[in-house]
């Protein structure tokens, strides 16, 4: 599948924002601290920024409001509805923290739950597509949710470090979720690499009873919408390198920095946390790029790819 920048940025940035919103909703940061107020603002900004990126790939974005109507059947519509719904408790929590230095327990919990449901809906847009076999697994939502939680916790650690408030619990949770996210992702990727294709050129053409089916001629010599959108292929050797880069940046570096954090204090701790957040963000960006680039669409059985 074509790794469109707008969709990659949308899923990574909004995932990060929802993770941070959940951390804030669960009251893991001191509501009286100024960095916590900034964190509330950052969470809302990340979420809105991500959603804006998602509208960039629409052919007619002025009609985007219509996407809220089909929540009964469409995960994309559910994602849109949940994104709007989630803004309510998040904005209430942000208001209380920013202007009254309070943490609202009930709306915080609701906000955290809504954030998780929204990320789940985003992941199900992909996981629900049977035509893209690599995505069509419960490990897809597991990865999206765990990466979002890990990213949110890392941001939480960062804001706690600015406030000079230890945040040992968050550091441990962040380590745990980083490990869980990458474990789930390893599992996802192993499944994808070992996959026996559900559909083949033989089943796609119904000609398997005669023999092996090979593409003789495409319908046309140039690319078309389908081959551009779904015919993207990344060389195996490059994919391997990128995968290792993603694990290094998104998993190992932030984990090492987290382990080093208890020994540091003051601005050094802030710098370590910032580096962990940045590395994780870049690593997940690469991971998300591969999520698209490595997935094969069933239609390629017709195009010999």
């Amino acid at each position, binding site marked *: 599948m074509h790794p469109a920048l707008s969709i990659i940025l949308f899923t990574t940035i909004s995932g990060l924002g929802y993770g941070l919103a959940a951390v804030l909703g669960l009251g893991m940061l001191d509501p009286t601290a100024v960095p916590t107020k900034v964190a509330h603002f950052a969470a809302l900004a990340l979420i809105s920024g991500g959603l804006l990126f998602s509208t960039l790939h*629409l052919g*007619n974005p002025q009609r985007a409001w219509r996407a809220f109507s*089909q929540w009964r059947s469409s995960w994309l*519509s559910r994602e849109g509805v949940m994104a709007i719904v989630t803004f309510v408790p998040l904005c209430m929590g942000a208001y209380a923290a920013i202007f009254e230095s309070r943490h609202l327990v009930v709306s915080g919990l609701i906000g955290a739950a809504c954030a998780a449901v929204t990320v789940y809906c985003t992941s199900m847009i992909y996981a629900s*597509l049977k*035509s893209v076999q690599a995505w069509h697994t419960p490990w897809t939502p597991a990865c999206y949710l765990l990466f979002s939680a890990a990213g949110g916790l890392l941001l939480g650690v960062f804001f706690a470090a600015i406030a000079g408030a230890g945040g040992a619990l968050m550091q441990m949770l962040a380590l745990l979720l980083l490990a869980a996210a990458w474990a789930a992702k390893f599992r996802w990727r192993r499944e994808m690499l070992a996959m026996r294709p559900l559909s083949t050129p033989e089943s796609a053409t119904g000609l398997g009873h005669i023999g*092996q089916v090979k593409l003789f001629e495409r319908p*046309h010599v140039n690319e078309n919408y389908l081959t551009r959108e779904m015919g993207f292929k990344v060389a195996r050797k490059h994919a391997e390198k990128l995968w290792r880069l993603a694990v290094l940046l998104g998993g190992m570096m932030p984990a090492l920095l987290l382990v080093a954090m208890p020994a540091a204090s003051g601005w050094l701790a802030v710098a370590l946390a910032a580096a962990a957040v940045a590395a994780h963000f870049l690593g997940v960006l690469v991971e998300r790029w591969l999520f698209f680039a490595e997935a094969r669409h069933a239609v390629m059985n017709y195009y010999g790819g």
Partner: protein
Amino acid sequence: MTSLPPAPTPKQLGLVIDLDVCVGCHACVVSCKEWNTGGYGAALSDQDPYGPNVSGAWLNRVHSYEVVPDGGEIVGESGEARIVHFPKSCLHCEDAPCVTVCPTGASYKRADDGIVLVDESMCIGCGLCAWACPYGAREMDLAAGVMKKCTLCIDRIHNETIEEVDRVPSCVRTCPANARHFGDLADPGSDVSRMVAERGGMDLMPEQGTRPVNKYLPPRARRPLAASAPGIPLAEETDGAKGFFAWLDGMLDRI
């Protein structure tokens, strides 16, 4: 509404495509584009139409495949390789994944005749339906930013202002080899249903669970080349020669 109507719909209008007959001339492809660029919805635009990278939205495309049986590359040994031309457009699936993923309600399946359509005034051009279709039957129109797909020529088949013989999809009307047939596949007595029953009409990618309405008739079994070989006299053998040829054979042997 992008929830699907109760299945099966009372009518299931669709196409039956005969892979034994299609000669791969692409006439249906061109006539489809010609009719639909002036018909239902936005025109089917092309990008860089006169340049080297011409590309555009088409609702019907013909692929060609080579089918090679085991050992079939050796002529006469076990069947032989053959070329099959393969037209493909929307199959108007009964369980259409392209419809249920649509967030806006633009994509829908008609409850009475099962035709799958896009209401372009509601489409935001998110492209998710094209991802959901395993057959590659949907293409985005890059000029209008809306999704295009086969309408089964909705503006012909019920159109009383044109002659009755023309009230079939443009591709069916055009096909010079008569490889394409249109009808109601829910009616077991219709011509198309009878054809499917007689020739073993098949679904494409049944494992995707889409239950397509359109059916494909497989190429008929061919007599292998080897079966015809004994009838062809081989030039090396002259044993059976008679009369003038026997005399000529003897003379030529002597000189």
